[in-house]
């Protein structure tokens, strides 16, 4: 519960209790006695004042005090959702996504010298030749598999 909620509930309880007690005293007088006009007017005044104060508190709680109470829902896109176990945020076990082989082919192609700009560095520049060979072999195997599936 937020501070504003606690304040609202506490004050509402106190106000309602006090008004009920005043009401009971004025409307249920001792047998034979009649509430006087000034007493009724004072009761009305207190009722209106009490209700006004209470409504004011409700308004304050619901409207102006978002930052205090944290009760208004933040926009969906900014509200962080609980993370899944971290390896599942990306993909379920065994569920490879498969990249576009043309993009990979471009990235693994031998560097092409661009006039005036030298050689464009690609990821292969950082891979040891052995790793590069294996990456290319895997890409070829994947293409062959895909072609096999297409022909089947």
């Amino acid at each position, binding site marked *: 519960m937020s501070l504003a909620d606690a304040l609202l509930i506490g004050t509402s309880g106190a106000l309602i209790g006090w008004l009920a007690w005043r009401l009971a005293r004025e409307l249920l007088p001792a047998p034979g006695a009649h509430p006087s006009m000034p007493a009724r007017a004072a009761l009305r005044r207190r009722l209106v004042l009490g209700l006004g104060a209470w409504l004011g508190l409700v308004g304050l709680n619901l409207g102006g005090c978002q930052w205090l109470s944290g009760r208004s829902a*933040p926009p969906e896109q*900014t509200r962080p959702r609980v993370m899944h176990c971290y390896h599942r945020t*990306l993909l379920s076990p065994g569920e490879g996504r498969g990249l576009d082989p043309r993009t990979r082919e471009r990235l*693994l192609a031998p560097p092409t010298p661009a006039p005036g700009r030298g050689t464009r560095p690609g990821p292969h520049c950082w891979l040891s030749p052995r790793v590069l060979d294996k990456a290319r072999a895997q890409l070829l195997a994947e293409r062959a598999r895909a072609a096999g599936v297409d022909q089947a």
Partner: protein
Amino acid sequence: MSAPAPPVEDMIVELTRACDHDCLHCYNVWKNRAPYPPAPELGTAGLLELLGRVVEQEGLTHITLSGGEPLLRQDLPLLVDWLAARRLGITLVTNGRLLTAAAIERLGARRVGVWELPLLAVDRAVHDRLSGRAGAFDRATEAMADLKLAGATVVGVFVMTRLNLPQLSQVMELATALGLDGLMLNRFNPGGRGAEHVELLQSSPAELAAAFSVAERRSAALGLPLAVGVPVPPCLVDPAGLTRLDFGACSAGTAHAYYTLDPGGRLRPCNHSPTILGDLRLESFAALRAAPAMQAFRAARPALCAACRLADSCQGGCKAAAEVCCGSASAPDPFLAAFAAQRRRL
């Protein structure tokens, strides 16, 4: 007190404290400055007995094997056999140094559902520096190529630090060239040895925001799936416009939590947190989930966030990093604390 934390399907198992790398950003809890209580490593029989009981009691469907370096455990193939025989999903987190083609064959490229290896830079000097060991880049990339040749599902992990952030776009190209199935973008989250290198490694919110927008653009162009594995406070980095990335929030104590079994059989709320909930050899998983320490961890929020309307969903970043760096789960996440003055009001 709130309801006890719900059951989960996943658990991380730290098989050993030993590691053949010494990453600058390593968050292993036994590398924290505050000592982590020692306990003898469980042997094969003890570990399998414990896992059998927990899997059955908790209804686990997936186990992540981590460490230290899990390949340093001689019984790893046997453990993988055991998990695969019970049809449990397996993720293996490794630095790749010992992952030769022969080791991949022994373990079974496809029996492990997801292989997670670091891809920290395109420049081997930077990758090796972050890994604390020469040759790390060549070994990791070769292991990735061998895994893909063997038909495995492989995810690269890019820890976003000041040292490698400028290479992110090229790392995404490299991941694509290697045929990886996705790339995790984890902002540097201080803990373990990493807590000693905050000055060197921690990027600013503006640097992270720029990197995330590069990642968004390149991911669309390359078709490379991305994920964010460490919560990023939206008050520091605006997620607007990042449709391919989800910043997420702490899952500790929820049904998506990744409780972590340490090498000695003790359970923690997650791999980053040093809080020991209890000894799983002596108590049930359900009892430890309901432990007051878990409730307190789940309820923790930094006072800094009290006025924020996202406090309940965001929870103020990573509580484990707050524990390690600032002594309490309800202290501010060190990233949030460092850049508190730059927060947007949400």
